[in-house]
């Protein structure tokens, strides 16, 4: 009896994870695509040097942003299968990609809000926050980004 109840719960969780996880995924990716469109004219480089700076307009400043995204139950279930047989876990690729794109976008948004038109020295790193979460079987990815915003005289045609 207990086994049946346990299996029932697992099935409900799987269904919930599948439905909402897919929805969250697609919604976020669509949202990212729209927002990235409006920042295409912004010069964003990971170069350590300022490309065509306009000195004196505003002082350059450091910007930072972070994104923490959780994976859903269904994908985690599939991933546990995959880690038994080995190979690429595609759902985690997508998760990391979403977190990275979101982090970069947030930096660009901050830069534009501050009146800047370019960023350089963009650095991304992933962090392990909350050491006990992964032991509880939770999978969250955390991406931190930093960049320096400045004014560039470069013409970036849209």
């Amino acid at each position, binding site marked *: 009896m207990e086994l049946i109840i346990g299996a029932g719960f697992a099935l409900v969780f799987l269904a919930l994870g599948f439905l909402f996880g897919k929805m969250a995924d697609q919604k976020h990716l669509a949202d990212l695509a729209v927002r990235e469109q409006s920042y295409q004219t912004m010069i964003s480089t990971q170069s350590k040097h300022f490309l065509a700076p306009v000195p004196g307009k505003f002082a350059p*400043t*450091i910007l930072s942003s972070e994104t923490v995204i959780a994976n859903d139950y269904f994908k985690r279930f599939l991933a546990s299968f995959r880690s038994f047989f080995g190979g690429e876990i595609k759902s985690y690729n997508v998760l990391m990609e979403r977190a990275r794109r979101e982090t970069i976008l947030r930096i660009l948004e901050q830069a534009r809000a501050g009146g800047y038109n370019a960023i350089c020295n963009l650095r991304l790193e992933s962090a392990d926050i909350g050491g006990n*979460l992964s032991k509880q079987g939770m999978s969250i990815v*955390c991406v*931190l980004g930093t960049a320096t915003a400045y004014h560039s005289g470069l013409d970036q045609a849209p």
Partner: protein
Amino acid sequence: MENQIFVVNTETIPGFRIVQVKGIVQGNTVRAKHAGRDIAASLKNLVGGELKGYTELLTESRREAMNRMLQQAQQLGANAVVNVRFTTSAVTAGASEMYAYGTAVVVQPE
């Protein structure tokens, strides 16, 4: 201009020349999430999506670490901090450290 400290994660600042190096300045903070956020996180782990509470926590930690770094820079009499880096580490269960460090310098307009 007098009170403002330039903070960049590049080695130089365009339009300015570094005239004096004051040394490394640093700031750190260790923060824990409260249990409510952990519960919210475990729910989010079912359906997926962004954990806003954790993102906020990281933003706060970053601000705190940076402020502490800037205080040090001010004490040293610097007017800019260049080459700023951030690192995180999971110290104990449920808590993480944010550490900011950079080089305090004195810059002059060219």
